[in-house]
């Protein structure tokens, strides 16, 4: 079917929402609670749009398109509405952007900028929270920055399936927490990080990144997770000392922006003090450090000698399901073309 958004004639299929069609066509409608992985929640109201012939604005994430629909997404009245929405969220938010580790990567901050929220006009009572929850090694929970978009709750329930967190109380006292407010380590939390990946504010943040660097100072590099065979694409966020500060992900990949505990929180082994940093040669039962020259000479001498004396089949190699394709290729080529044996295998069977 055809419809019009901001004067642009677009093609859509039945059942799609206005937000989906807009995103497909590169039209940016603000949103805080939306995720393509979730059933539409309509909690944050930021995606309000005008439809011709409809009196009141509707939320784009919950409204399905219909043929001939004419939609406007950024009229002066919609902008004003969004500005008020951001102001209301900020009125019950710990606005500490100057030192917040989320700054620079915070959707709430982005929308405050976009709609010129300079000052919160609705000063008043704030929900009382007993500070930051620090009950696990991976992330902190800071309810003072939660805007109740429910994204974390919905991801935990609809994608992870565990429903470890939920809403407690109603109205002004509503908050996201665990059953009986128990620490995450004592309940069924899998520490997959889905909630942390998608939190639009600083309410959920990786512990490893706190007080390390501003988001814009971090270098991002794309990689593939080294753990299981799913092949999740991840972004390593690196500080100026080449330390992995946190792991994030975007949605355009096999994992669709999702992670498990190992990929999200288990890559810090890269910077471990225990890494091997120098070649080692064993002498009289003990290792000593050696130069690359010496170590490689020793390996080459021994493999060459054994090959020449006993034939290539007296040598063998275990290649690795952890190494790259290129390295596996070279290892089997090394054994076959250089050593003259097909005895190369790896732990596929184990």
């Amino acid at each position, binding site marked *: 079917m055809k419809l019009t958004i901001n004067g642009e004639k677009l093609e859509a299929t039945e059942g799609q929402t206005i937000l989906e069609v807009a995103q497909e066509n590169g039209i940016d409608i603000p949103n805080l609670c939306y995720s393509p992985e979730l059933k539409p929640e309509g909690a944050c109201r930021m995606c309000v749009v005008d439809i011709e012939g409809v009196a009141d604005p509707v939320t784009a994430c919950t409204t399905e398109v219909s043929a001939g629909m004419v939609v406007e997404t950024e009229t002066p009245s919609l902008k004003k509405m969004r500005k008020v929405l951001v102001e209301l969220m900020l009125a019950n938010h710990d606005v500490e952007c100057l030192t917040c580790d989320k700054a620079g990567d915070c959707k709430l901050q982005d929308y405050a900028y976009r709609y010129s929220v300079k000052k919160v006009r609705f000063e008043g009572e704030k929900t009382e929270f007993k500070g930051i929850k620090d009950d696990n090694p991976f992330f902190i929970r800071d309810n003072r920055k939660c805007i109740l978009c429910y994204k974390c709750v919905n991801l935990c329930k609809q994608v992870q399936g565990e429903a470890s967190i939920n809403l407690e109380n109603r109205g002004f006292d509503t908050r996201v927490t665990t059953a009986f407010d128990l620490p995450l380590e004592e309940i069924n939390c899998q520490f997959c990080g889905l909630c942390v990946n998608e939190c639009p504010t600083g309410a959920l943040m990786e512990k490893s990144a706190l007080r390390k660097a501003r988001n814009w100072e971090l270098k991002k590099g794309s990689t593939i997770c080294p753990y299981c065979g799913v092949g999740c694409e991840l972004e390593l966020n690196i500080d100026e000392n080449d330390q992995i500060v946190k792991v994030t992900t975007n949605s*355009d990949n096999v994992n669709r922006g999702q992670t498990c505990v190992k990929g999200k929180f288990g890559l810090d082994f890269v910077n471990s003090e225990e890494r091997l940093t120098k070649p080692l040669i064993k002498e009289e039962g003990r290792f000593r450090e050696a130069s690359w020259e010496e170590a*490689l000479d020793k390996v080459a001498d*021994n*493999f060459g000698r054994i090959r020449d004396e006993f034939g290539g089949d007296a040598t063998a*190699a275990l290649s690795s399901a952890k190494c*790259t394709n290129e*390295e596996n290729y070279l290892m089997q080529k090394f054994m*076959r073309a250089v050593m003259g044996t*097909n005895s190369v295998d790896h732990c596929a069977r184990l």
Partner: protein
Amino acid sequence: MAGLAKSFGSGAMTNSIDEIEGADAIFVTGSNTTEAHPVIAYRVKKAKQNGSKLIVADPRKIDLVKYADLWLQQKPGTDIALLNGLMHVIIRDDLLDKKYIQKRTENFEAVEDIMEKYDPEHVAEITGVPAEDIVKAAHMYGEAERASILYAMGITQHTSGTDNVLSIACLAMLTGNVGKENAGVNPLRGQNNVQGACDLGALPNVYPGYQAVDDEEVNKKFSEAWGVELSDEVGLTVTEIFDGIEEDEVKALYVMGENPVLSDPDSNHIREALEQVEFLVVQDIFMSDTAEYADVVLPAASFAEKDGTFTNSERKVQKLDQVIEPIGESKSDWEILMELANRLGHDWDYSSASEIMDEIARVSPIYGGISYERIEEEGLQWPCPDYDHPGTKYLHKGEFSRGLGQFNPAEYIPPAEKPDEDYPYVLTTGRRLFHFHTRTMSGNSPGLEEQYSEELMEISLADAQRMEIEDGDRVLVSSRRGEVESKVTVTDRVPEGLVFMSFHFAESAANVLTNPALDPVAKIPEYKVCAVNIEKS
């Protein structure tokens, strides 16, 4: 993999990971998906929300059981009996896809012959799964328009592993569930690049792209490409290599990024071999239990410190970028290999990983269309034979890789080792959520270590009460190969008579206990069943 290659002509996941969500029925067997492949488990859970039926077959009450419509709690090592039982019912109740069988497959007669005696009552006796559940499962799977099977090491790590896979392939073909979107046979690969290591010929019988080393044409092709004479004799597998060392036939061993002391069965035997081998070089990112035995240890760069590609479980070749400089003096494995080759009289001259991929594309047809330029943004799924090919989302569309799909039904054979008076319990092994393989990586991640820092062997309440064991007690677990100590957790995840250990921890190394008895074809050890005794220590 040998099983799927024989049945279909290609040993890999038939479908893409995203396709799981579109299946009408999912049969998960021998895969603890939520712990070993959590992101794939998200797809299974989503499928369930979309209305798909979920059948889980596992001796343990794994987490996925919570989401299942049907849980078949089979005895360990009875997979073929269970699969045959399902096929018996599918044939009996006429849930077959006759047109598909006739048009796309061969050797169906063999299935009819073998399945006849596997009636649900007989299968219930072998597997412990109630006959009515076998019938229900057969209908759930057989009546689905698109049914997908997910399996992992719980199927392959048995002496009957290849036959298990052949039987899975039979079940899928019987109902016409291979070669279409969302439906298929999907082995979940346990390591990030186990698919790639196989694809690129880190196997003793094939060159890159599964081209047999004993095929004359292939040998000629690679001899020409590499400019050397090549051996046409199939080499040794991992387990055979260690036997070869013991017999003094293998004198030099190169271990790159592996830790066989913990990952291989019968660890004590591996340690003896490593002690004995004349020259051992180990290349890794950390000092490992295996590296302790080395004559030379070479420091390797980690995944974050190099360019390269990994091939995931769905055959997708994906690029990783160098994000940081190599730690210390460590070097990429490919650079180390090149320096060694050149010291041994060769003239390798690769200036980048991308150049190596170009050579791979020239010699292995399934990677023929892969280049760094093409996969910069998004990976490509093999087969991808040329630079214009878009890659392959699911395999065997219209025709199997080998032409006709081949039914190779199997008879049930009990596991190599059964519990007896001396070793009355069955031990099965696997992974845990917070750790990976031998913990070379996860053990060096403080957060993961904090979550799970020592082995907790799972034991049933009935067994624990009889031995007067409580949560957290230490026990001595012994088998015919050796003994280890472990703490226990008393849980309903395992039934009476069965205990479960992961193989992550050197202190409670499950593989000291496991049985090195091999599947005769795939040479995979029987990690999933061995007989043990347990005493309070």
